[in-house]
């Protein structure tokens, strides 16, 4: 008999941050595979760059801060940041841009705030915004989705575009990249074309592709499935995705019903750009999101409104990163003013 000293509770669910983070990573796999399928090797190369740089810079900062390196690297949070960043960046951006975004995400947005659990802002989104503002031209290098152009880049072609900026023979950057459907829509509507005519643009395919553009809807659908699995496994809280998607749906439906020619349908908004990635993987980042039940409703809904606003009237094609960062700023306030009524309080007030 040992008479070990310990403090209650003596049992635990044995959950771990490690498990949660890896479940998030598993849930990302289907959508990521789809992204690689539709947008080519660039996605994979980006992923490799972000993963290496994120892990490396995390280790470096931890070493400088004299913190245990192994535990933190193993928790998987840096890998998630890397994945989100790689999925958010256009597939053909030059390598140095990806490196800058990764370093910013990990060193500035995460470690300088105190590391996991202390960062106010979602690291991946900070990294994304930094390069978005600094290098707007490069950030439009979206590969044309599979089947939209004849030119399909091989792995070595993609590699040389990213690392040497060397385009394959007889092609210009314009012939291999293409604006995203959302971008296209914005430009076309800017040119006073209406949505119906824009629909014949080549980013929209025919079969199953007329919701939100080639590739995008499939990618979104798979992220949605991954997200639902995470909710089922209780990895993420359902409130944020539900309130975000609901608010985006309501507001986009309202405008599209009122003016069908100018405002795309709710379905388009839900399944294009990074909507589903945001709903289940970015907005639900626990560290930078609100923690109270009511706060989470407001947080998600706020992101929905901001995303729609920036997409429709803002200067950037997709507003997710900005919406997230803006709502991140509101979190301390939200948490403070949405404290639940504690037991016994309901009856005294």
């Amino acid at each position, binding site marked *: 008999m040992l008479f070990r000293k310990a403090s209650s509770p003596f049992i635990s669910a044995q959950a771990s941050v490690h498990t949660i983070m890896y479940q998030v990573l598993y849930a990302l796999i289907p959508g990521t595979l789809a992204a690689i399928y539709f947008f080519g090797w660039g996605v994979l190369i980006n992923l490799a760059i972000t993963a290496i740089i994120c892990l490396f810079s995390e280790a470096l900062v931890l070493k400088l801060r004299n913190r245990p390196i192994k535990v933190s690297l193993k928790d998987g949070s840096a890998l998630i940041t890397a994945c989100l960043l790689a999925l958010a960046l256009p597939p053909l951006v030059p390598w140095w841009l990806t490196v800058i975004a990764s370093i910013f995400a990990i060193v500035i947005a995460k470690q300088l705030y105190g590391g996991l659990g202390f960062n106010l802002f979602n690291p991946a989104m900070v990294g994304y915004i930094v390069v978005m503002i600094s290098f707007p031209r490069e950030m439009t290098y979206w590969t044309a989705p599979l089947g939209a152009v004849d030119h399909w880049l091989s792995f070595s072609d993609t590699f040389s575009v990213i690392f040497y900026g060397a385009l394959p023979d007889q092609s210009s950057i314009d012939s291999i990249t293409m604006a995203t459907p959302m971008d296209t829509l914005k430009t076309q509507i800017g040119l006073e074309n209406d949505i119906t005519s824009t629909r014949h643009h080549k980013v929209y395919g025919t079969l199953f592709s007329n919701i939100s553009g080639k590739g995008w809807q499939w990618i979104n659908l798979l992220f949605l499935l991954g997200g639902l699995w995470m909710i089922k496994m209780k990895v993420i*809280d359902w409130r944020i995705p539900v309130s975000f998607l609901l608010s985006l749906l309501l507001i986009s439906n309202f405008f599209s019903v009122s003016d069908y020619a100018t405002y795309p349908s709710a379905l388009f908004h839900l399944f294009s750009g990074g909507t589903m990635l945001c709903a289940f993987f970015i907005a639900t980042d626990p560290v930078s999101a609100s923690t109270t039940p009511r706060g989470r409703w407001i947080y998600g809904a706020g992101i929905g409104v901001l995303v729609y606003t920036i997409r429709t009237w803002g200067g950037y094609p997709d507003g997710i990163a900005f919406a997230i960062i803006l709502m991140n700023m509101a979190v301390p306030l939200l948490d403070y003013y949405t404290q639940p009524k504690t037991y016994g309080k309901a009856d005294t007030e």
Partner: protein
Amino acid sequence: MQHLRQARRTMSSTTKLYLFHGGLRLDGHKQISNQSPIATCKPQNRYVIPVQQHIGAAGDIIVEKGQRVLKGQMLATTKILISAPIHSPVSGTVIEIGKHAVPHPSGMETDCIIIENDFQDEWIRRNPVAENYHQMNSHDLRNIVRNAGIVGLGGAVFPAAIKQTETNIRTLILNGVECEPYITCDDKLMQERAREIISGADIIGHIIKARECIVAIEDNKPEAIAAIQAAIDEDSTGFFHLQIIPTKYPSGSEKQLIKIITGKEVPINGLPADIDLLCHNVGTAYAIHQAVFKDEPLISRVVSITGNGVKQPQNMEVPIGTYIADCVTQCGGYNDNASCMIMGGPMMGYSIHSDHLPVVKATNCLLVTSNNEIHPANTEAHLPCIRCAKCVEVCPAKLLPQQLYWYASTNNFERASEYHLFDCIECGCCSYVCPSQIPLVQYYRSAKSKIWELEADLKKSNAARKRHEARQFRLEQQKREREERLRQKREMLNTKKGRPEENEINLKKAAIAEALARVKQKKETQAITPKNTDNLTAEQLRQIKEADQRRQAMKKKNHE
């Protein structure tokens, strides 16, 4: 068989229940200890009875060393309201009165009475009121409960008679929930002594003039449900209702149970009586029955001795004061892999440092765990909080444990209190689910005790400051009065120059008044300044000065 059928019938006809926020579904591990009937603990040579075994004041010891005592004889008592007397569990001799280690998280020692058993089992004269209690008034009945030393046996050990000071409470809730894993003492008690429990509840009902009694049991105890139902069926008054509730931790906690059954919440800083309710544990009801029908004080209780670290886990009726080691020996002793002894359940109990401690009234369970049976949070190396809010989802008090943790760990006590630190019931649900394995409850406990300390300090320094201010005020006033008198005197001198005799008298009067005032003031100042400061050696004067400086420094420190 018939009982089981009845139980099933009642299960299907339960009334509406309410949910409390949060909570956990835990593995019960109840079968470890509930397979055999309640055993009786063999008489031992020695019993150690702590004088204080309840929340409240300790009693005065009324026996002497060397004195022979009888079984059931009172050993200590007091007139203070929140207190309970203690009694001898056997007949024998008081061989020692002094400090002895008792079960406590800090491993502290308290006053204990040690009795050597003479194995005569000679009872003190008993005089049970039995069925006559129906004719007795609340006050006298309550005295019986009080003199029997009965405390809440669910774990809180609050003197039971206090809880009954209110009368005309509508509903008595009898708590047979027992939601903590491993513990089965109430389960077995209900199975084997249902009639006595129901009778005890009837006595409580009589004391508080309740109109109904709801017996709440979790649905994982079908045998207990059947037994209680059978006992209720024998009662024709319709006073009792059985309420089966779903198994969920911590539904046995008083506040949560009240919410489940009534949908109401006990107001903050309030009592269940404020919403017309009173809660008692089934074990307490049984003890009250014994007191009224047999005039037996609380000198034994049922204890679950369980866990994979003990050879024959079981429930045992153990006299209060029996050494834990003796109980374990009777359960076949420890297994080789036994690693930790917990008093209470795995969620809210505490580990004890030795088995050379007595079983006390609060000991509902002795959980001896094997090496890999438990996994308490690792205090040294836990990950940071990732704000996942899993703790928020499970907190039955509807707190924000992650915010509490943030403020408790950074010693920001003001904020921690603002986030309702003191509404935390320390149920452990948050620690249980936390993926970062943060020992949250430990942080809350230490923050609470630090705040209590600070408050006590504050009270002390406040009192000192008030004394100081009062003295300053008094001195000022005296000074003002003196000046006023002098002024009057001068005025008199100026205006009444024409009449010498009168003038002289007045002058004299004023001089006398002034002298008196001086004497008075001197007396007062003497009361606060040390005497005998004349004729001291230089060395002594230096010492006094040093002491003064130290005191000043202390005061300053306290103020900071």
